[in-house]
């Protein structure tokens, strides 16, 4: 099969790999019909996530048709499914609590020890996201082997729904939703979202659906801010204004009730410490650039809530711990418990309450995936979301 393959920093290519097989009883094989490039794939592309090896197949947002099933799978051949990027067994202590991205079994024993060393506890398995999260071959491919297929994939029975309406159930839509949930939004709240990428936009949309009175989105790409405005959000371009002062003024001196960092470890920004962080990343010292989060912690009101869906991988320097403690902030974060949200969000899509297609800017054959990566990274104003179509 053909699959988008990592060869090194900023070097991905579509190569030929052996077709996947049923390995474990609960497996299914999916023929991918649509797959997307995620903002977090760019962290892999930029080489800032450890444990990505040459030859790895990337991609964790995908859907398709069931073509083969193991004896323990509940799926049937021909079914159309969207697959969560988090691989979860469904039976361990964590899955039982619906904390699927903390699944205690899905990361194979020899791989999980990397994250156990780094974080104190092992992470779950994820598709196409480094050997730290299991080394599972990803979804930017013609075929994917899906473990625990009786738990993860959601069957799309409504043929009227296009792939593009439901594809983002695999990651960014539930991730945006959980980000808003972690912000513990109350009616009347003002919510500030850093990053008008797909997750930030879906978080803003979700915050609206949770009855936030105002949602303010911060970015520096005019087109992305236009998309946010299209959702009924107010916008701040951090190239033009001082974000903290602007938020303070816009909220009458109180500050936003909740802040969402949908940027993560490769934040742009002007702060001196960010420059130092970039320098360190460049020379391989690997500190996470966290300028969006640092700004958010200072901007949020006293007793407010901080939600972090943006991806961080390691350590960061000069973290404003004092603001966190002295202001009495609450923090919610984590990889998304996708399986917890798929049914509910699918229903909202069918009811027309959520539209996910507005942010798709480009559709490409899988064979052009490398161009997709380069442009998604380098032309962020216009390339807001890339959907790849294998077999075209």
């Amino acid at each position, binding site marked *: 099969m053909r699959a988008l393959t990592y060869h090194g920093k900023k070097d991905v290519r579509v190569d030929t790999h*052996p077709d996947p097989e049923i*390995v*474990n*009883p609960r497996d299914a094989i999916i023929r991918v019909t649509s797959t997307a490039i995620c903002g977090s794939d760019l962290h892999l592309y930029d080489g800032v996530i450890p444990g990505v090896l040459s030859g790895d197949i990337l991609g964790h947002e995908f859907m398709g048709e069931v073509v083969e099933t193991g004896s323990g799978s509940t799926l049937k051949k021909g079914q159309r499914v969207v697959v969560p990027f988090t691989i979860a*067994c469904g*039976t361990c*202590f964590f899955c039982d609590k619906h904390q699927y991205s903390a699944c205690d*079994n899905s990361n194979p*024993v020899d*791989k999980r020890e990397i994250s156990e060393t780094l974080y104190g506890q092992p992470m779950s398995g994820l598709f196409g996201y480094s050997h730290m999260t299991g080394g599972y071959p990803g979804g930017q491919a013609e075929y994917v082997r899906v473990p625990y297929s009786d738990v993860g994939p959601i069957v799309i029975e409504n043929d009227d729904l296009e792939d593009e309406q439901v594809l983002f159930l695999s990651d960014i839509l539930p991730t945006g939703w959980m980000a808003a949930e972690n912000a513990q939004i109350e009616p009347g709240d003002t919510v500030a979202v850093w990053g008008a990428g797909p997750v930030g936009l879906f978080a803003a949309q979700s915050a609206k659906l949770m009855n936030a009175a105002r949602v303010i989105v911060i970015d520096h790409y005019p087109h992305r801010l236009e998309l946010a405005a299209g959702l009924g959000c107010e916008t701040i371009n951090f190239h033009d204004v001082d974000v903290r002062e602007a938020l303070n003024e816009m909220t009458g001196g109180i500050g936003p009730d909740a802040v969402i960092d949908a940027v993560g470890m490769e934040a742009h920004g002007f702060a001196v410490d960010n420059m130092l962080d970039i320098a360190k990343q460049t020379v391989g010292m690997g500190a996470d650039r966290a300028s969006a989060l640092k700004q958010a912690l200072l901007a949020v009101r006293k007793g407010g809530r901080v939600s972090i869906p943006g991806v961080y991988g390691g350590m960061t320097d000069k973290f404003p711990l004092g603001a966190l403690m002295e202001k009495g902030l609450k923090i919610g974060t984590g990889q998304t418990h996708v399986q917890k949200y798929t049914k509910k969000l699918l229903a909202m899509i069918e009811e027309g309450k959520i539209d996910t297609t507005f942010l798709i800017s480009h559709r490409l054959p899988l064979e052009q995936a490398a161009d997709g990566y380069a442009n998604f990274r380098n032309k962020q104003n216009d390339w807001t979301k890339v959907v790849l179509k294998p077999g075209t």
Partner: protein
Amino acid sequence: MKPRAQAAIAVGALAVGLLALTRSSSNPPSGTGGAPGRTARRDRFGRYRVVGKTVTIAKPSRTELFAFWRDFTNLPRFMENLNAVKPVGNGRFEWEIVAPGEGSVTVVTEIASERQGELIAWRSVEGSTIDTEGRVAFRDAPGDRGTQVELVVAYSPPAGTLGVAIAKLLQREPEMQARRDLRRFKALMETGEIPTSNNQLDREKN
């Protein structure tokens, strides 16, 4: 490498072994409080080295977990470097262990002690090439979280520190092996399979 070194490397693979019951309890390390003695910074007990690990297994029940383990012929399903275990009479079992570069070695073990549903301890029989003891204990986890399963292995390190270093290099280091075997046991019990990111069947193993 000397045969004895190979054998002892394989012991870790075996992840059997018990100890703790005998030698360590008569001479426990001081100052560990409520923590298991093996977590002390000193991990040598005379000529024995001790490794151990605890996991919590949500399901099935403690009784079923015990029964699965007590049938030693099941162990190769989750112990990576164990080819086969077969009963050889008188309550003894012959373990066939993968020996790096040497095919396999065998060791015969006997049950040292057993409490139904709670504990199984075994040791290599007198005169074995491998000198090891092991035990696995099953306890109800607090808060209805299932069963805490603790595996403790004692073995005589091959050729001292150097032997462990060599074993580590070969990824057969006993602590790593015991830890990974126990986690495979947990996965197999909770999910019915052992997770892998391989896209193809391992045709040698299957």
